[in-house]
């Protein structure tokens, strides 16, 4: 447990709900809030984010009960650490550490490694009291723009499912197994995970998928939380969070951007509404190929129907018919074109779906809620970026925050940032240096900078078909340099030799605020 905490407090609310089945042998201690500042606990469930924050209620000085915030709870399937807890154990641990009550849950974005726990452990979460849920404006069912974005991504998914089943059908007919179809299946599984369970995905075709896909992935996890939370609020950038913040701490919303171009990492140009419709069009045209009209695929480019050629053997027949066998108008020396499978393009057009899928993954990352928590006294800032990628980062500086008549810029916030939850497991395009990391912890605060990376490097490097380099070495190096070794990792411990750059005094101070446990890593930022 954190060493420098407030005076030991008794449990003020008894743990009323019985926990029969999985109660640990040693009762889990309540997570205390520090006397001032904020404790950030990073659970070690595997490749994914699950952060529990504890702070004192500045706005209710008489209430000694800590204010608990949970930011995300998820992991990639199969990424559990050998010496770490299961996600079930983590959920139980959260329940017991918080006295079965979360004051605030933040879902940064809709990827499996951020939300899967809410679904797989819904029996635990649905028994907990959840006061408030924060999600990005892109999840707001009443937001017109958000809704049309969801429609667009539904199209993408239908296109992907269609492409995948078409590829499998052709492969089945020709007996081939191509890397293309493996890659596509991999991407598709990633996108559909959590949205539709594996059984329903069996024999999925574009036609059946249409009714089953709820628009964007992982909606099921959200539903658990929405049903449970007493209040759901949607966050928009360049504002303070609803109610000004949490427990009397100002919370600044940095992302996701409202500017759609940045959301999709496009060069901003033209007006946004127009772009939305336009970008949707190419996916829609692709996906239309899997919807039949008059017995032919939709989205045809010409009025003429052409000569139908549906299955591989039809293609061969039509080819021979049209191009050149037994024709009397060929010069005898000229060899007619031959139908050969190696030159067929039956499946090449489906490769476009991979680009759509990748775009979609990046888009979802960019919808990450990005929050800066400010400590009331020192105004030190803790930055949680979800998996925000460059488009999201770039949008921060496009506007300012108005607080009590004062105008704050992103640099004002970054300069005070002493704690950074590293984006997207430390990948190469989810931490920007210029206008980002470079600006963090300026002046006197430079000595205090600490970074936290939820990464399981060994597992990520084994991801097929291509390894994920998380954390990306140049970013890790830069983080270590800036934090002088104080880079807290989910998968590793932090031995003294990593902290050589610190003076003995600094090292002692850091050790006093840093905790390593099999279930989690924990660090406290003091408000002084």
């Amino acid at each position, binding site marked *: 447990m954190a060493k420098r905490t407030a005076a030991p407090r008794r449990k003020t609310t008894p743990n009323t709900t019985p926990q029969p089945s999985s109660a640990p042998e040693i009762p889990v201690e309540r997570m205390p809030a520090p006397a001032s500042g904020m404790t950030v606990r990073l659970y070690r469930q595997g490749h994914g984010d699950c952060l529990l924050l504890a702070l004192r209620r500045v706005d209710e000085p008489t209430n000694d009960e800590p204010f608990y915030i949970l930011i995300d709870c998820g992991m990639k399937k199969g990424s559990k650490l050998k010496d770490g807890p299961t996600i079930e154990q983590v959920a139980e641990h959260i329940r017991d550490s918080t006295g079965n009550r979360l004051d605030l849950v933040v879902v940064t974005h809709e990827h499996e490694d951020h939300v899967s726990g809410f679904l797989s452990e819904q029996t635990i979460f649905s028994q907990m009291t959840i006061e408030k849920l924060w999600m990005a404006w892109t999840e707001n069912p009443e937001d017109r723009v958000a809704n049309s974005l969801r429609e667009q991504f539904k199209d993408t998914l239908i296109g992907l499912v269609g492409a995948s089943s078409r590829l499998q059908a052709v492969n089945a007919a020709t007996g081939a197994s191509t*890397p293309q179809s493996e*890659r596509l299946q991999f991407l598709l599984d*990633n996108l559909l995970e959590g949205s539709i369970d594996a059984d329903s995905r069996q024999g999925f075709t574009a036609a059946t998928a249409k009714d089953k896909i709820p628009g964007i992935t992982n909606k099921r996890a959200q539903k658990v939380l929405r049903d449970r939370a007493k209040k759901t609020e949607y966050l928009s950038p360049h504002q303070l969070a609803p109610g000004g913040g949490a427990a009397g701490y100002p919370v600044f919303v940095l992302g996701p951007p409202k500017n759609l171009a940045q959301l999709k990492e*496009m060069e901003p*140009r033209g007006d946004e509404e*127009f*772009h939305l419709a*336009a*970008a949707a069009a*190419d996916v829609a045209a*692709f996906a239309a*190929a899997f919807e039949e009209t008059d017995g*032919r*695929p939709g989205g045809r*480019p*010409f*009025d003429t*129907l*052409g*000569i*139908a*050629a549906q299955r591989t053997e039809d*293609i061969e027949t*039509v*080819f021979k018919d*049209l*191009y*050149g066998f037994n024709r*009397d*108008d*060929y*010069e*005898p020396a*000229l*060899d*007619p*074109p031959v139908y050969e499978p*190696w*030159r067929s*393009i039956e*499946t*090449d*057009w489906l490769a*476009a779906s*991979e*680009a759509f*899928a*990748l775009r979609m*993954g*990046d888009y979802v*990352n960019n919808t990450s809620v990005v929050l800066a928590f400010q400590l009331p006294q020192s105004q030190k800032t803790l930055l949680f970026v979800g998996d925000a990628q460059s488009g999201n980062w770039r949008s921060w500086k496009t506007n300012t925050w108005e607080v009590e008549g004062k105008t704050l810029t992103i640099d004002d916030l970054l300069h005070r940032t002493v704690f950074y939850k590293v984006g*997207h497991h430390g*990948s*190469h395009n*989810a931490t920007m240096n210029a206008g980002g990391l470079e600006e963090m912890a300026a002046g006197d605060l430079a000595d205090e900078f600490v970074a936290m990376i939820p990464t399981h490097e060994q597992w990520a490097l084994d991801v097929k*078909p*291509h*390894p994920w*380099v998380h954390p*990306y070495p140049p970013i890790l190096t830069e983080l270590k340099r800036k934090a002088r070794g104080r880079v807290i990792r989910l998968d590793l411990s932090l031995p003294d030799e990593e902290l050589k750059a610190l003076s003995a005094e600094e090292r002692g101070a850091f050790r006093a605020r840093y905790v390593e446990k099999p279930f989690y890593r924990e660090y406290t930022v003091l408000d002084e």
Partner: protein
Amino acid sequence: MAKKQPAEAAAQNQAKPDKTPERTRRNHPANRALRVFAFDPGVGATLQTRPIRELTLNVRWEKSLAPGPIGEYLEVIDHDPASQCFYAPVDLNDPHLLAQDGVALSEGDPQFHQQMVYAVAMRTIETFEQALGRVALWSPRKTNEETTPRFVRRLRIYPHALREANAYYSPEKKALLFGYFPTRGSGPGQTLGGTVFTCLSQDIVAHETTHALLDGLHPHFADNTNHDVWALHEAFADLVAIFQRFAHPEVVEHQIALTRGRLEDQNLLGALAQQFGTALGSRGALRDYLGSTDSQGHWTPMKPDRKLIDTTHEPHARGAILVAAIFQAFVEIYKSRSADLFRIGQAEPGRDLHPDLVRRLAREAAATAESVLRMCIRALDYCPPVDVDFGIYLRAMITADFEHFPDDSFGYRVAVIEAFRQWGIFPQGVRNLSEETLRWRSPDQHRTSAIDDDLKTFKACLKHLFNPVEMQRIYQEVRSEFGSPPVRQSQEDDPAEGQEIDINFHWGLNSDRRQVDETVRANCRWIHSWLHQTELRNLVKHFRLTLDPDAPATIPRSTWTKLPAIQVHSCRVARRRGPRGEVRTDLVIELLQRRAGFYDVEKQKRCDAGTEKFQFSQADFMLRRGCTLIIDPVDQELRYVIHTHGSVAHDVSADTPLNQLRRYLTKAHRESNTAFYAPPSDDREPFAVVHRHGPDSDDFSFADTTLDD
């Protein structure tokens, strides 16, 4: 199907007796006139561009052009797999079409699309062939099962293969795949959501056809071995697309009148893929080599930027630097060639030019463009077969141009060198940027006492190369040392006993392409034997090759000689101007060796030492070193040895080039990872990924080298 062949073609068909009366017989025409969009359907949709909407291309008359069209070089197969159908092929010999220059312009008629891709691709092939003075060959098909690459007569064109904003050349399928997509912009002639066809853009068709032509000449220019290789592929394809359009006087005159002769001002000639660019939502063409338009619609001319090359790595963007440099050189030459015309014509700024002056200026522009383009194409014969970069290409351009025009009366070479300098493109290991230092040097020029004897020996051996009797003797000697070559080895086929060994360099623009392919392969075979004669074996080090039996085991061994295998990659002819203005034919011989590379350095060591067995197809990457020899068969003189980077010691067995390549590839690989998912890396379709356009296209590049043999 009705027989629609013209009388002449049928007359040549021996199977059918020709009953046409003698007097009415005509020779077949030289050209076939076919209508196309001058740029694309977007250009020509406004009042200003209306006069240059349409062009009639004169395409070489092909005797037996079948419906498709299917001819000697191309076969247009109109399969639309997304719509699950074929579109009926156009028969350009239909009298109704012959009488009206082919199918009329129409975005909605697939047969017009077929006609346009055929016409534009054929024109591109002709440009290429005329510059090189020999027939063009597509890259042969290599499979794992067969050791001998198979001749591919025709490039296949699929005008409606993809449903996306993309078009690419597939080296694996020997095919061009064009896509169609709903527009995202509202440029001229577009409605939101209307369909844009990439096959209706002259630029895109010419660009992709050029990829295929370049691949036919230099298949290893698709191997990603440094930042410049793919960029050069892209740049070259853009150069051909841009300069080719200067051959159409209608277009050039229109644009010259519009800019009052100032080609450096905003105009359509220096920009590529107008409709495609606006359809993707940008403010102008996909790539504009003259300037750019900002969000307020202001156009600013492009300025040379010497630093850009250091920070630009994406192939299209990096290639654009090379194109910008060469286009700048073109504009400068045009300006200097037309300065007198402006003075004579007393052209005043702000006033329209006299139509006669416009025509004369257009002629100057066309002549300049043709010369620059030929310079660019001929340079390809003066490049090493692998690992080329911009600096090497510059040296090749200067050398090639010198070989055709020894005195540079219009200052082409000076202009090109100056433009490269302004864009920060400097060749490695060259002390200054003068024509003399940039030209490749002949062995005689940089001869030192150390290689003097070697050169003498080589010259003696060279004499034998063109003497069938000597070659037979050498062949017998080599054979008696190594035994008979095993069958089914492409380079080492045992020629029939007593067959004359004749290095054939007498082929050009009128040769039969399949025969040329066989000739080239036979030449390669003889040169392979010739290289293995005892006298030459110690000299191959000057060609960045090794025949050391103790070379690393990662260099594949010949199944015949058991020595490190040398691939005689190509042996073709190149024309040049001789000292007295006569046309000479040089022999261009490309020699290559390869070595299996592994990212894991320890594994590399074990495999090099032969302590760990491995499959070549399982190597992480392939290092290739070698050279291009340019030989004058008449004077029997070695004119140039153009080898890959590095000193004599840097052949394929040296570790320096291997380590360099490993560093480059691992770095490129890391940089190409997107955050959440690794990018698609389809080794089989390198150009597909490079050409996939979209908001995130910068994230794509391909990760691995191709392992093609």
